[in-house]
């Protein structure tokens, strides 16, 4: 096998066109994204000059939405808050189908409940127990963590030492502990209300997806409100509230002692597409670079058929089984190395260019960034193997190139260019080798966020490595079929 690998590597490196094609693939993969990054400028002209609003960052490092109505007191040390949610109502502006009226109603992820938060700055740590519009009672903390907790109306948060415990109860007597988190030091405790905008997606008449996010608010009625360990007086704040915001989004609190009515808008959750540009935007060239990768990988095998050279190859390796794996290994290694260089340049340089031009970039952890870079290189390599197998199956360059593009790039293009319905797009990204592009998605889709969760906006239906596995299996199956055919057919 070592001899075969050396032999196939010599074959690859001694044809100038293939080396040139591989370099073109690198340049396209890195260049397209960099050009895009260099060309995207954000400007936020306003009364204070060209100042773009900061996107709050949560304790986990993600961009978050932290806008809600908060009725609170100080919590220096141990303590607790208990309340019974007796009513949830709200307003939805201009909902479907007519989008022509303001109606009463509660969106599914409207939230009212109790919260302990580090402080009043956006993005600070918190734990909350809440009743939602349509998702029952839940315990959430630090924006990304979300636990379902039945449908009980009684909610309680208590802190002892640095342990925060969230509990629910059907009657205020028997309590069920749902989750524990940690928060030490001075904090703020209180009631909160938030109602995210009403997301609607529709197919544009000229293609494309039209997304709309229409203002809503929610009013929660709390009874049996009791607080222990709190100091200071009750205060109402619209966290993240902006001057001049529409009146429906302005929160308010009415207090009758143990009963409180709290109105609010906004959300306490991971940011969706409002969280800034995603890092994979710098790798948009991968789809174009992939064309060069496919052509080189196909030619690496079909050129032998066209020239009759396959006879020499098979006479030298009459067992035949090892020939295609050796070729696949060479093409995968070359493509992976090239893809890694391209992505490792495009992502950091592209992000730098975007930030220099005032663009907000959704922050991600180092591991995610590495996964996007290495995953992109791996996806290119896997697709190269698929293309090589197609070349061996079809034995003709044009047919193999077209087949691979139809399998990989066409679904990706159809799904992300939003020319087909979202459901069809998601299906394509599950069952075709285009599923592997999920490896590039840096911001996960959170179930507790009603967002434009469609492929056209960069959300893949499969998780990153799950999608990659689909592409990998396609390549493995095609290579297996090609090996069997090579053994069976006359050269």
């Amino acid at each position, binding site marked *: 096998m070592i001899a075969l690998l050396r032999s196939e590597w010599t074959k690859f490196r001694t*044809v100038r066109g293939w080396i040139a094609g591989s370099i073109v693939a690198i340049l396209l993969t890195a260049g397209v994204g960099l050009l895009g990054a260099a060309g995207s400028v954000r400007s936020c002209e306003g009364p204070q000059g060209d100042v773009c609003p900061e996107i709050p960052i949560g304790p986990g490092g993600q961009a978050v939405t932290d806008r809600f109505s908060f009725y609170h007191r100080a919590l220096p040390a141990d303590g607790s808050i208990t309340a019974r949610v007796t009513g949830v109502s709200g307003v939805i502006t201009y909902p479907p189908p007519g989008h022509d009226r303001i109606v009463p109603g509660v969106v599914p992820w409207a939230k009212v409940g109790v919260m302990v938060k580090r402080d009043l700055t956006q993005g600070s740590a918190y734990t909350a127990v809440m009743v939602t519009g349509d998702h029952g009672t839940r315990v959430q903390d630090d924006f990304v963590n979300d636990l379902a907790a039945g449908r009980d109306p009684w909610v309680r948060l208590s802190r002892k030492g640095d342990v925060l415990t969230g509990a629910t109860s059907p009657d205020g007597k028997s309590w069920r502990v749902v989750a524990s988190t940690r928060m030490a030091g001075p904090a703020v405790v209180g009631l909160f209300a938030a109602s995210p905008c009403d997301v609607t997606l529709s197919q544009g008449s000229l293609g494309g997806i039209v997304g709309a996010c229409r203002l809503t608010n929610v009013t929660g009625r709390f009874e049996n409100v009791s607080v222990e360990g709190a100091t200071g007086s009750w205060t109402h704040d619209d966290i993240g509230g902006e001057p001049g915001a529409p009146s429906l989004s302005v929160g308010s609190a009415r207090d009758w002692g143990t009963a409180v009515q709290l109105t609010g808008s906004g959300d306490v959750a991971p940011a969706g597409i409002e969280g800034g540009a995603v890092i994979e935007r710098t790798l948009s060239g991968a789809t174009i670079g992939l064309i060069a990768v496919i052509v080189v990988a196909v030619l690496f095998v079909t050129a032998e058929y066209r020239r009759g050279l396959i006879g*020499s190859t098979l006479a030298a390796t*009459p067992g035949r089984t090892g020939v295609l794996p050796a070729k696949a290994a060479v093409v995968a290694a070359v493509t992976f190395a090239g893809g890694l260089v391209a992505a490792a340049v495009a992502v950091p340089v592209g992000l730098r260019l975007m930030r220099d031009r005032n663009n907000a970039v959704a922050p991600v952890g180092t591991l995610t960034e590495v996964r996007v870079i290495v995953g992109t290189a791996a996806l290119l390599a896997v697709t190269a193997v698929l293309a090589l197998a197609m070349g061996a199956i079809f034995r003709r360059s044009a047919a193999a190139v077209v087949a691979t593009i139809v399998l990989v790039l066409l679904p990706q293009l159809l799904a992300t260019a939003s020319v087909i319905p979202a459901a069809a797009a998601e299906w394509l990204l599950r069952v075709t080798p285009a599923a592997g592009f999920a490896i590039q998605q840096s911001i996960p889709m959170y179930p507790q966020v009603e967002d434009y969760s469609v492929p056209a906006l960069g959300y893949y239906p499969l998780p990153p490595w799950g999608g990659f596995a689909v592409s990998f299996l396609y390549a493995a199956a095609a290579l297996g079929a090609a090996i069997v055919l090579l053994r069976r057919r006359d050269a």
Partner: protein
Amino acid sequence: MDATVAVNGLRKRFGTTPALDGMTFTVGPGTVTGFVGPNGAGKSTTMRIVVGLDRPDAGSALVGGVAYRTLRRPLTHVGALLDASALQPSRTGRHHLLWLAQSQGLGARRVDEVLDQVGLGPAARRRAGGYSLGMRQRLGIAAALLGDPPILLFDEPFNGLDPEGIVWIRGLLRSLADEGRAVLVSSHLMSELQDVAGHVVVAGRGRVVADRDVEDLIAAASDGRVGVRTAAREDAMEALARAGATVTVTGPDTLTVSGLPGAGTVAVLTAAGVPFAEVSAHRATLEEAYMELTRESVEFR
């Protein structure tokens, strides 16, 4: 491994066209075996089956007693030139041999040796796409020699060679056979094998028409004929015909006489007063012997 090729009862169809129809022969060591026949006789298909490129529908082909497909490092057992144009044009001749060598665990030194052996040293680092047909043949021969194999198969190696090249390859084939190797050389022109082949296998329509030592073949084809060289061709023909001989004109001043021995021919010509420069026993060329053998099996298309 002993230097033999044994082809036994090979049958092969491509679609509905039969290519091989019971092809059977053996190639022994120490001699050049010519494999001759018109285009379409099945020579190339037989060779492709021997090196495992095509699978026969029936029959077997063994090299040194084993199937080619079971060989490890096969190029050290069997070297084959099947299609000299099978080259990646943008790759240099040297690199073409290098990947072949590496697939057999051989090094770059062996590549340079065979390049020198076939006289391609100076052109080795040029792109093979720019090679003449003759240079491609030399490169293909170099590839066959790469593993220093005891068995060599050459399919139409004379194609595209200039006269100098033909002289060179004849010498090479002879010396390879003299080293004890089994050498099978196919050609559709018997004349190319004159003075090289010690044995010929004549193929027609997918099977063996004749399988003989060259000496026997020529002797049989020459049987009882006499060559006459004379300036008075018309007179000679008349006299010889009157004596009952069959006369064929073979040149402006040469005739071939059959049905009359050499001495009788001299007597007839002398008696008739016809001047002649030479009367000799006629030795058929390999070409003539071949034409006689394949007269029936040539397919006209």
